[in-house]
């Protein structure tokens, strides 16, 4: 893995590494996440989602693929930059981007600013809501809900500062690494890799 632009100094550099071709599009992550965090019963309300992408190969044959998405916990997070109250903030110690509900005024500027469509407005809680990398769970030593349930073991979570972590090893062994919309300068912490086992 080359050219990881580390601008922030963090005790932990938490990241999600998604082995792209292990995602089978089952959406277990979607349901596990909504259930654990009481995300409202609306199609528009979610913290993570798998997109089915139909395309064509070089010969014009139809192809399908799956793209799991979530908050990228960007090191240069546009949502944090635009938040007028400081409700959207990035934790220094591990880089997790959060929204503090008590401070959110519901202006939704962050929802517009986010290039990844990672946020939604929770009418019931009167706050913008998003993926927390399951901070409540990981603070108790558990994996994030989506990682725990992932049927294809596509999703992996850990600390990139620890060379022995699962995610560090995956990035080291990866035959290709991509992040979404890198050209926007967001420095995302969700990686999409292919691996030869």
């Amino acid at each position, binding site marked *: 893995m080359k050219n990881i632009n580390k601008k922030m100094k963090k005790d932990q550099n938490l990241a999600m590494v998604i082995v792209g071709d292990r995602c089978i599009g089952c959406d277990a992550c*979607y349901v596990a996440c909504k259930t654990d965090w009481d995300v409202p019963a609306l199609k528009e309300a979610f913290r993570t989602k798998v997109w089915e992408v139909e395309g064509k190969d070089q010969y014009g044959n139809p192809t399908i693929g799956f793209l799991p998405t979530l908050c990228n916990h960007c090191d240069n997070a546009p949502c944090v930059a635009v938040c007028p109250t400081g409700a959207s903030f990035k934790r220094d110690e591990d880089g997790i981007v959060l929204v503090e509900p008590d401070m959110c005024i519901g202006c939704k500027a962050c929802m517009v*600013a986010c290039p990844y469509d990672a946020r939604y407005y929770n009418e019931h809680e009167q706050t913008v809501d998003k993926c927390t990398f399951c901070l409540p769970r990981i603070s108790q030593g558990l994996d994030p809900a989506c990682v*725990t*349930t992932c049927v294809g073991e596509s999703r992996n979570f850990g600390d990139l500062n620890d060379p022995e972590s699962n995610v560090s090893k995956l990035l080291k062994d990866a035959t290709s690494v991509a992040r979404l919309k890198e050209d926007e300068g967001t420095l995302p912490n969700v990686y999409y890799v292919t691996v030869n086992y």
Partner: protein
Amino acid sequence: MSRHNINRRGFLKLAGATGIAATAGVTGIPSPLSASAKKESAKGARFLKYDRGVHSPSFCEMCFWNCGVDVYTRDGIIHKLEGNKLNPNNRGHICAKGNAGIQSTYDPDRIQSPLIRTGKRGEGKFKKVSWDEAYQYVFDKLNPLVKKYGPETLATFMHGTGERYVHMFSVALGTPNITVPAYSQCMGSREMAWALTYGTGISGHETFDLANSKHMMIFGRNFAGAVQVREAEDFAEGLARGSKLTYIDPRQSESAVNATDWLQLNPGSDMALALGFIHVIIRDNLANMDFVRKYCYGYNELVEHIKQYTPEWASKKTGIDAKTIERIAWDFAKDAPNVVAVPPRRMTRYGNDTQTVRTIAILNALMGNWGVPGGIFIRTAVPLDLPKHEHPPATKARRADGVGEGEKYPFAPPSLGRTNGIYEATLKQKPYPIKAWLLYGTNPISHSSVGVNNLYDAMNNLDLIIAIDTQFSDTVMYADVVFPESTYLERDDAPYIQKDKVPFIALRRAAIKPIYDTKGCYDICKGIAEKFGLQKWFEHSPEHMIEQLLSSLSDEQKETLEKDGTLLFEDVDPYPGASGGPLKFATTTGKVQLYVKDLEEYYQKEGDNFAPMPTYIEAPQPKKDEFRMLFGRTPHHSHARTQNNWILLELQDDTPVWMSPKDAKYLGFKDGDMVRLINTKTGFKSHPEPIKVTERIKDGSVFIHHGFGHQTKAWTRGYNKGTSENNFISDGVDPVSGAAAFHNGFVKVVRA
């Protein structure tokens, strides 16, 4: 794109939106910093707490696969379900449906008490009654029918963990007409073919060693889209480790994502393709002759028989290039024996299903992959001597569905029966009157095989319909008396004992008390049985069976099972073929039967359907301007059971009609146009559905996902969402297995 037709902006399309967004954020919004400053100190503190709650072990009942589940409750409310890490069915993961088990349990649309019908059948008018009134009602209605017609007038249908109690009641009452739809509506033809060849079935937890395979050749089995968790895991794992994947299906399903080759063959021609592969393998001396000589019966006959099925011939039938057939046959054989050819699971397709799977079984045999890593593993039973419970003697009365020695379907197992045959017997009241149905967790209206109109007519012939279920399915709405079952999260159940690659036991303990006035299937069947004086067969409650099991274990085993919910028995060899151990086959010849002698007699009488070696049988073809109706699973729903589950409905609540660009152009349809399907046989019209124009479906066919179109108004969310394929599929029968054949239904597609 049906599965993600949401309003939230699709960020994939909006790469350029960030600039606009940033401007709006910075300039447009006042900044009440003073108000927020005092909250700064507690910022984020709420995210450092997580109460996992109280753990109880269970296994999932959202589908038949029964993954191990850890249930977590907070203050008596189920908060979260997670996969049990030890359970070999799922190794710590659960799918979308499994995760959504909570929503099904806390669904206010559930059946909340015993009910007796007051309105017309299907009208949905019931009165709440006591349990005893409901049991008495069954006795008062059923007993006169039993007196008049004999106990065989009751037909029973069952699907779910409580099956054993419905079975027990049925046998004790004395009816032979016990049916498990998993046979005739699903796996029957596949299991029949495997048994004729190998002397054993593939079983509900299939014996394909996908994770270790070097080449998976998959005939229309959607491992990724049907999501039985272990198999989906193994499928992904095998591919990640570099297995080749030849995916054979007229539709590009989720499983085709990483296919080395996707062969979009003509529907119904799978058998021709497999025959073509076998031809090449034998012609080019690619068979594993060590295995063939040692274990196979009828190789020489096969060599002669297969000569007619050249790749060129197979190409004409399948539409797949002959060179491709040769190349893939070579590739497949090159990696033998660590390869596997996988038949479909729901093998109710073209009426040539048993013989199609026979062909695929032979293809495997020629690779010598029996008991070999990456091929077919061998299951071992749980090595425990549990107390044997006494069973009532089975009746010798003739079955109504043509199953049994000397009957039309002599090969079909009487223990499972032909559900489709019972529908027909009820419709025609032949060979004798069927006047009562007992349905447990089954829903014929959404899983019909005789046409839905015929099914209503059949039910009109019944004097009594008894339903045991957790929810008001379309069929439960037609019941005369309804017994509400507790969900799997609300009840103890008999221990789950699985013969498998690594055999294991799983426990299910009630995580919460029943929310409504419901009971487990054991209590319900016992309550009915008591009215008939048959309670002696119901001495062993689920709790008692758990106690009996625990007392037969060592202290250490007992502790593991109670604490972890799963107990493994790992001292087994799933690969005796690789370790050179002798292999045994429980067939008539004691060998793998490339040639099946048992079929000879029927072959003389009935012709090619019963050929001892697979002989190509052409599926019926659509006429001009007609389309073959295909259907299959979505990863987001289990059969027709979960379409009222709010969270799963978010993932999918519709059934767009898939059509190829060529066909759409011919009919003048564009993607998203609204169309209706018309059954060419009955004239039945669907309500409008959007069309999905895609090369992922073969010309001449249309496809919709299974499980939708519910007409039960008790489902406040799932009512009338999408279309049910049941109104458009065929009512065919595979002549060997007697199981249903659904894929020969033809439709016209018209603008709505």
